[in-house]
């Protein structure tokens, strides 16, 4: 009697009842436990291990040293500025993103397809090139004489540039899928276009708008390449946390840098969690 070697990724037995979950139960085409394990391993080595090292090193001198690094005047100033400018950028993106998405979905004009493609430009451009580009227009060599270099406004401009796609692309698909019948029903019931927008369209777009804002915020908080040149890195003025951390590394204070980095990481993680909640909340009325 021969014994069969059991392979780790054995195909599912044929008599599996499939009446309750038609798709999820079959394992055809999956990678099985081995694939899952490999993916987790790769993820752990590439992502988790370095982050663990970061967290551990930040606590090298103990909790008090950690607190000292995080609460230094410069660190706090950088963090405050970072958070405030990121919130403003997220808010502007919410409005601009809605307007742009509206124009792309509901309006018809020549060149609409080109404009649609242009929205993704910030995704395709290296951040350092974004910085150089903005400096060309808004810097010392500005052709229109507007020199915003080394100002807080310049930081905001750079962040608006790189986060533009988030605001638009979060709202655009939802707007496209919106049931036009609802708007026509509202019109048949006597609602003006403005009322229809306020009471019918906007409430259904809020989760997407919030999503876009959260993504913008998350990106803005950590943005480095586009900001480093144009902000001029003036501590207590235009320095954002990412630049602060970079300077700390350059000054050989990697533990202090790590402490602030952990705080920034915490902010990012909070944003990711908030995003999940927004998605979940947004889907509450879908059947």
């Amino acid at each position, binding site marked *: 009697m021969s014994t069969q070697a059991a392979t780790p990724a054995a195909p599912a037995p044929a008599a599996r009842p499939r009446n309750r979950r038609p798709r999820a139960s079959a394992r055809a085409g999956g990678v*099985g436990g081995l694939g899952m394990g490999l993916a987790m391993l790769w993820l752990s080595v590439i992502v988790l291990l370095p982050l663990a090292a970061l967290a551990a090193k930040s606590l090298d001198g103990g909790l008090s040293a950690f607190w000292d690094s995080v609460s230094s005047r410069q660190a706090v100033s950088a963090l405050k500025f970072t958070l405030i400018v990121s919130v403003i950028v997220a808010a502007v993106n919410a409005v601009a993103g809605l307007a742009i998405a509206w124009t792309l979905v509901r309006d018809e004009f020549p060149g609409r397809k080109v404009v649609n493609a242009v929205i993704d430009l*910030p995704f395709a451009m290296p951040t350092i090139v974004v910085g150089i580009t903005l400096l060309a227009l808004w810097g010392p060599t500005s052709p229109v004489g507007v020199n915003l270099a080394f100002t807080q406004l310049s930081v905001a401009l750079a962040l608006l540039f790189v986060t533009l796609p988030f605001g638009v692309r979060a709202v655009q698909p939802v707007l496209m899928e919106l049931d036009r019948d609802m708007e026509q029903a509202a019109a048949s019931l006597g609602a003006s276009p403005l009322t229809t927008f306020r009471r019918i369209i906007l409430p259904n777009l809020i989760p997407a708008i919030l999503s876009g804002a959260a993504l913008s915020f998350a990106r803005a908080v950590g943005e480095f390449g586009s900001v480093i040149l144009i902000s001029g890195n003036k501590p207590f003025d235009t320095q954002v946390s990412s630049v602060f951390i970079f300077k700390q590394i350059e000054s050989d204070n990697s533990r202090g840098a790590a402490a602030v980095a952990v705080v920034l990481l915490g902010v990012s993680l909070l944003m990711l969690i908030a995003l999940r909640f927004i998605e979940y909340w947004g889907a509450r009325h879908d059947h």
Partner: protein
Amino acid sequence: MTTSSVSRYGIRVFALGYLALLLLVPIGVVLYRTFEPGVGAVWDSITTPAAVSAFWLTIEITAIAVPLNTIFGIVAALALVRSRVRGKRFLEALIDLPFAISPVVIGLALFLLYGRQGWLGPTFTNAGIQIIFSVPGMVLATIFVCLPFVVREVVPVLREIGDEQEQAASTLGASRWQTFLRVTLPAIRWGVAYGVVLSVARAIGEFGAVSVVSGKISGETITLPLLVENRFSNFDLAGAYAASALMAVIALAVLLAMTLLQRKGDAR
């Protein structure tokens, strides 16, 4: 909904004006400034030994990081969509992490892990392998930042097509590997392609994380983005513009590929 013409034009002007002012005008200006000294000057600037070596280094890092990431992306996507393992949500959240972390934090984390005083630093130094301030570190940083792209593009495709085709293939006698090659891979190819394009764009343009781990050793660990910053800091504005122009050309090619692939994906 019939918006009044006034509001429609108003929104259009606001939206397009915002886009023009924020995106297009700066790009126009930098293009002008770049080619002001003439195409010849630009060409000279991007064919210096430093520039050429930066270019090839960028290509080299991208050529290692992106394929590795693509394999991970496909495997992870299959695991996320088709396995019935606990902790899928966790895996999905982890994969999104690189999107939310600042590049400088990423570079620092790698430095603290593989640097001379890092956790694994001594291990590698003793084995004669240098990670930080050398190419391997830059590759690792690039893989970190590119991690989510392929997965996130492939997952929705897998969810949409279901696994019935694979089931059919297995009833017809195909082995798992054959099924993967002949059924799964062709079905997800546009999602993979789009994810690869996004990864390539990100890999070529990565600045912050690579900046921290590179050590900026001229001729060895300077990529194109680092070159741009280097020239700028050394007051070689024209040189910085030229290198930026090169990257911009690559960015446009990427954008074009993205747009075309999106159409392909939609037309399925």
